[in-house]
């Protein structure tokens, strides 16, 4: 056997303990008391004994096991004949605890280990949590001061992802802004998070000030990030260079020393915010990148740059990406691209700039205040298409300097689709990532959300 997929981990970066048991399995038969949701370990053993016959059974004289321990983790840290590792107590008979797998050599005595308590990190302890993860498990991270290099190498699986979710004061409180746990690397070398396994879900987490990238994925992850932020790192914010199928919802990449979000091998981004990066807001390669309702602004290079690849850009706002060579959208020769409902405004050169735009379909976009021109080429072979329903109107952002890109009345209800095929339905979508906020009652919003938390 091995650690169960139903095990739930608890990480409290400041108040947890490196070698704590760290997890609890509520699905075990007759679960006891969850000792993982407490700062201190429940018991620090120094007299563990492995049963003389069965090497999955352990006892202690100093603090006998009982039914309250069932489902809890125990981290074995040493002792002759003991195999270090994090184990899970599956049952207790009398004072004998049966764990999920062999603990060592039968008859061994003097084992050390900690029962219960939250872990202080993924990378700490005699046996690390990150090495102990199993597909299907979930780890909660409490919002406490946090600084560690996290390297997740264990893969999840289809239907059994590994989920890591941040919380502020209570599990599931869906924190936003500064209430999300922040892994602040304080300029330590390397990345804050390396994600090398597939099928991970990360929610409500922040990564900052890493010497290199905030988040980097490799080895083909199929990962989902929700409400995460990667800021002020020495390299890229989210670096999915080697990661097919990265999915980001409501994520923010800002103030990074390189690109905000780099996704060479395809990605889907919804409601994301890439801003104030030293490089481009987003870069992509040959594989399809799907940008929905994203804001790319105030980057020191392009808003979105891509080579010969595929893009679906819908309802985005690309504003104020400056420099004589910086465009809102910059691409060589898109192989196939659909660009619609997007605002290209106040960029340093062109709103949209391509080497060859013949494979593009673009319409229902707004071009305003781009320093050199709206489109390049503007006409002739390879031109970036001018849509019949394009606009050249001031988006009337509510407060762009303060990051509020909700539009005024100019672009209200001018988006695609208007009249649907068949002529029975008509849409009235606004153009841009953030819909118009009516003076009273809010309203008229396509899926209201908090950008970047």
């Amino acid at each position, binding site marked *: 056997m091995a650690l169960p997929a139903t095990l739930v981990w608890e990480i409290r970066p400041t108040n947890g303990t490196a070698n704590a048991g760290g997890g609890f399995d509520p699905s075990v038969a007759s679960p006891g008391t969850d000792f993982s949701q407490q700062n201190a370990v429940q018991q620090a053993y120094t007299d563990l004994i492995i049963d003389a016959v069965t090497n999955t059974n352990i006892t202690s004289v100093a603090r006998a096991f009982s039914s309250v321990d069932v489902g809890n983790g125990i981290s074995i840290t040493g002792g002759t004949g003991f195999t270090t590792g994090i184990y899970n107590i599956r049952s207790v008979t009398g004072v004998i605890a049966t764990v999920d797998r062999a603990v060592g050599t039968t008859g061994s005595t003097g084992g050390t280990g900690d029962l219960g308590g939250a872990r202080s990190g993924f990378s700490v302890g005699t046996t690390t949590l990150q090495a102990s993860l199993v597909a299907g498990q979930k780890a909660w991270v409490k919002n406490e001061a946090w600084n560690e290099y996290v390297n997740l190498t264990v893969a999840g699986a289809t239907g059994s992802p590994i989920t890591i979710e941040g919380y502020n004061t209570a599990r599931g409180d869906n924190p936003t802004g500064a209430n999300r746990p922040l892994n602040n690397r304080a*300029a330590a070398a390397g990345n804050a998070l390396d994600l090398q396994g597939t099928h991970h879900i990360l929610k409500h987490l922040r990564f900052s*000030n890493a*010497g*290199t990238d905030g988040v980097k994925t490799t080895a083909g992850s199929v990962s989902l990030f929700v409400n995460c932020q990667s*800021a*002020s*790192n*020495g*390299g890229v914010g989210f670096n999915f260079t080697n990661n097919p199928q990265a999915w980001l919802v409501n994520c923010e990449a*800002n*103030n*990074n*020393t*390189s690109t905000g979000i780099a996704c060479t091998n395809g990605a889907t981004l919804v409601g994301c915010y890439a*801003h*104030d*990066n*030293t*490089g481009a807001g987003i870069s992509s390669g040959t594989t399809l990148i799907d940008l929905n309702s994203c804001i790319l*602004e*105030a*980057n*020191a290079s392009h808003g979105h740059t891509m080579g010969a690849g595929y893009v679906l850009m819908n309802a985005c706002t690309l504003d*104020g*990406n*400056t*420099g*004589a*060579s910086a465009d809102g959208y910059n691409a060589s020769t898109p192989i196939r691209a659909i660009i619609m409902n997007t605002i290209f405004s*106040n*960029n*340093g*050169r062109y709103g949209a700039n391509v080497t060859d735009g013949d494979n593009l379909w673009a319409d229902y976009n707004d071009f305003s*205040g781009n*320093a*050199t021109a709206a489109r390049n080429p503007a006409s002739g072979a390879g031109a970036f298409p001018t849509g019949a329903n394009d606009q050249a109107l001031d988006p009337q952002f509510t407060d*762009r*300097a303060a*990051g509020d890109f909700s539009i005024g009345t100019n672009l209200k209800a001018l988006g695609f689709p208007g009249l649907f095929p068949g002529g029975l339905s008509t849409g009235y979508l606004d153009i841009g990532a953030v819909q118009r906020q009516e003076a009273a009652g809010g309203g008229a919003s396509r899926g209201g959300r908090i950008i970047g938390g």
Partner: protein
Amino acid sequence: MRELDHNKWTDAERTEFSLKGWRSRRPGEWPPVCSVVRPAAYAHDLRRGVIEYDPAWRNYSNHTVRIPPGTIVRGCNFTQNQPDTDAIIITGPPDSVTFIDCNLCNVRLRPGLIAQGCNTAQAWLVTTKDAEGKDVEDRQWVARHSDDLTPAMKVAPVNAVLDRSF
């Protein structure tokens, strides 16, 4: 925003444009750089000249910026191309301006300057080869703060990108 109608330019601006291919930016024109309008001291796209801080604008990348005392600057991008670039002119004591959540990459941070939650990394822009052998630009990190730069770190690597003219 800027005035791109040449008929509304002054004679001096038209003369300047005929000589340089662009005219000097007027205060308050945003974005501060485009193909035909640039700050007077614009050298190239990685050294874009001096502009004033304005709460209406957040992207000051590769510019030198004048900021009045008493200002709280929040969430702005002051990225510079080369480490230890003297890019911020505070027209008062250094501690009279507070930077919060700003990108101060490659900015020389003078003693007393207040930076909270900012990226102060120092990194060279360099050209490297990608997996297919093509030249690509990347950032080569050297220090977390301008105070940590050694003389050797301030020397440009041979593959550094130092100029980008348009």
